[in-house]
């Protein structure tokens, strides 16, 4: 099979995925765009972003180092996320595709749709990655988990180049056997039990598979997004009749942290929480979950 420019789509796909991995992606794949067009709701489908898109490339990068799991939560919130690396690779990949194959391509913005407030993204990068076979939905609020790489951050590229799609994972690694055991004993998996927002609930069936996942995103957002925190503080300050109350609303030690984070443009703006992943055996102990394990698997050739 050959496409435009006499290009073999399989060869083009191999070169694009190789580019992503060479730049630091642990995994990369092509999602079936027709499946995405059916699953994503109107307004959030790939062709709502790039009308002539024929392929969606998803890629994933590893999370933080193993050492990071041992630090206090208040510190991990500033550096735990590694999604910037994924975005950088995807951005470069779009340029690579246009340069190498002369086919229009875009870096898919991971941002919120400005017509929908602060909690509805343009596109679901999670959906792209899942359909491309890069991870499966977990009981931890549908965070994708991979049986070998554990917990990753994802980015997507859309292109008018037609590439053969991959399939979703054949099996879901969540819940791990130890999590299913804890559920049988206590009715909760570790992620449900130790979530500081208590936003996770669910059921595991007798075979140890996910039966139901319930995630209260709004509760999770109180620890992980905080987009409403600053306007809330400003409203309290504006509503205050007493100057002392106004000062407290703006400069109380708990509130002044937001000014710091905004001033420095913290990568974890305004908050991040990793407690469900900290206790997840797949995120922390998958065979290639961190640079130490990956280096060991490759005979010490890489720590990335």
């Amino acid at each position, binding site marked *: 099979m050959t496409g435009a420019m006499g290009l073999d789509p399989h060869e083009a796909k191999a070169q694009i995925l190789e580019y992503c991995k060479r730049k630091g992606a642990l995994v990369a794949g092509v999602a079936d765009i027709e*499946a995405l067009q*059916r*699953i994503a*709701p*109107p*307004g*959030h489908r790939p062709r709502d972003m790039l009308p002539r898109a024929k392929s969606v490339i998803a890629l994933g990068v590893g999370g933080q180092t193993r050492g990071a799991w*041992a*630090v*206090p*939560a*208040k510190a*991990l*919130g500033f550096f735990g996320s590694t999604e910037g690396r994924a975005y950088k690779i995807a951005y470069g990949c779009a340029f690579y595709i246009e340069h190498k194959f002369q086919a229009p391509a875009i870096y898919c913005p991971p941002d919120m749709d400005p*017509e*929908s*407030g*602060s*909690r*509805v993204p343009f596109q679901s990068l999670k*959906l792209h990655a*899942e*359909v491309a076979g890069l991870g*499966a*939905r977990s009981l931890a*609020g*549908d965070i994708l988990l991979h049986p070998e790489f554990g917990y990753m951050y994802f980015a997507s590229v859309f292109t008018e180049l037609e590439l053969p799609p991959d399939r*979703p*994972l054949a099996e*879901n690694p969540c819940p791990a056997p130890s999590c299913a055991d804890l559920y049988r004993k206590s009715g909760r998996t570790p992620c449900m039990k*130790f*979530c*500081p927002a*208590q936003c996770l609930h669910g059921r595991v069936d007798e075979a140890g*598979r*996910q*039966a*139901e*996942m*319930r*995630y*209260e*995103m*709004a*509760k999770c*957002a*109180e*620890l992980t997004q*905080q987009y*409403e*925190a600053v*306007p*809330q*503080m400003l409203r309290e300050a504006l509503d205050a009749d007493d100057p002392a109350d106004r000062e407290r609303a703006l400069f109380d030690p*708990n509130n002044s942290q937001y000014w710091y984070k905004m001033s420095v443009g913290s990568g974890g703006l305004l*908050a991040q*929480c990793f*407690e469900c992943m*900290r*206790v997840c055996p797949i995120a922390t102990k998958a065979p290639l979950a961190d640079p130490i394990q990956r280096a060991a698997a490759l005979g010490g050739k890489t720590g990335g």
Partner: protein
Amino acid sequence: MPRGLTMPDIGVTEEMIDAFGAAVWELSNNVQVRQGDPVRQLDFTAIEAQRPGTGMTDAQIADRLNLTREQVLLIRVLLEARRFDRRPYRRLYELGGSRRFRPQT
């Protein structure tokens, strides 16, 4: 406000927020409920059947509740701000290392 419109322009009142707020909240992505693993299995029938639980767009919610998309958008975003509680974030100060969350802490 959506596209510069005010609450009166699009017909949203506090009474409307009281009446429809709970339904809008449950149908939005603020609460997500999934049975089985339908996306991974590309089970399109199950995906469609589960949309009210997995989170609908404002337009889809509007169709279901006989509201306009702008009304749902405004109700949802106002509720996201009003229900947002800054206090739980402080729980993170006690966690990490070997310390895990306990409901009584």
